[in-house]
């Protein structure tokens, strides 16, 4: 077995591992917030969960970015996924803006009721920055969130394409 086929063989397995690991780690704060999970990360568990989360994130990035890991079928699925993402990015902003428009109508207290405990909602000092600095900070936060969740969204769509073919 060549190195290439070993990588091809493991690509889908790595996709599955990264997908479920990221999904579980993203869901836990919400479950805790809704009172459906008693798991609390403290001390060493904080460090372990941080390492696992960012390792998973890096794995997702590598799986999306590295074409050497894919055989031609995986590449064709990747191409289909990229095409779908392109369509979604063209269509999604309108409904997204509509949702955000209604969400900013809620005050911070209401937002804190529906967001998980570790979700950063901003604080008063952000407002004091004012003008361009405030917008830059908001842009940086948006880029960070997109950067974290985009590889996961890509892999989720890839998995869905694979499932449809299967």
């Amino acid at each position, binding site marked *: 077995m060549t190195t*290439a*086929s070993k990588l*091809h063989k493991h690509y889908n397995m790595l996709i599955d591992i990264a997908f479920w690991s990221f999904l579980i780690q993203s869901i836990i704060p919400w479950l805790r917030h809704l009172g459906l999970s008693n798991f609390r990360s403290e001390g060493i568990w904080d460090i372990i969960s941080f390492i696992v989360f960012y390792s998973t994130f890096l794995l997702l990035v590598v799986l999306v970015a590295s074409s050497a890991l894919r*055989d*031609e*079928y995986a590449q*064709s699925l990747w191409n289909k996924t990229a095409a779908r993402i392109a369509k979604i990015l063209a269509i999604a902003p309108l409904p997204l803006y509509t949702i955000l428009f209604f969400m900013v109508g809620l005050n911070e207290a209401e937002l804190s009721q529906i967001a998980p405990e570790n979700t950063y909602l901003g604080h008063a000092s952000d407002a004091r920055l004012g003008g361009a600095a405030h917008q830059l900070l908001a842009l940086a936060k948006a880029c960070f969130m997109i950067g974290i969740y985009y590889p996961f969204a890509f892999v989720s769509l890839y998995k869905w394409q694979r499932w449809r*073919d*299967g």
Partner: protein
Amino acid sequence: MKNRLKVLRAERDWSQAELALRLDVSRQAVNAIETGKHDPSLPLAFRISRLFAIPIEAIFDDRDGGQNGAR
């Protein structure tokens, strides 16, 4: 695109994993080609042809107009 890959594989008593290994692709790729979900690239089609020692047109039939690989 219709193909005889499954038949040719069965004649040699190979599993999908075994064929994937010989073609240097994943098992999922072999499965997708066999079920017509994926049209192989020209280099892979030639590898398949060489492996079974028969011409490409004896394995693949493009008369149904399938173009799955491009979609």
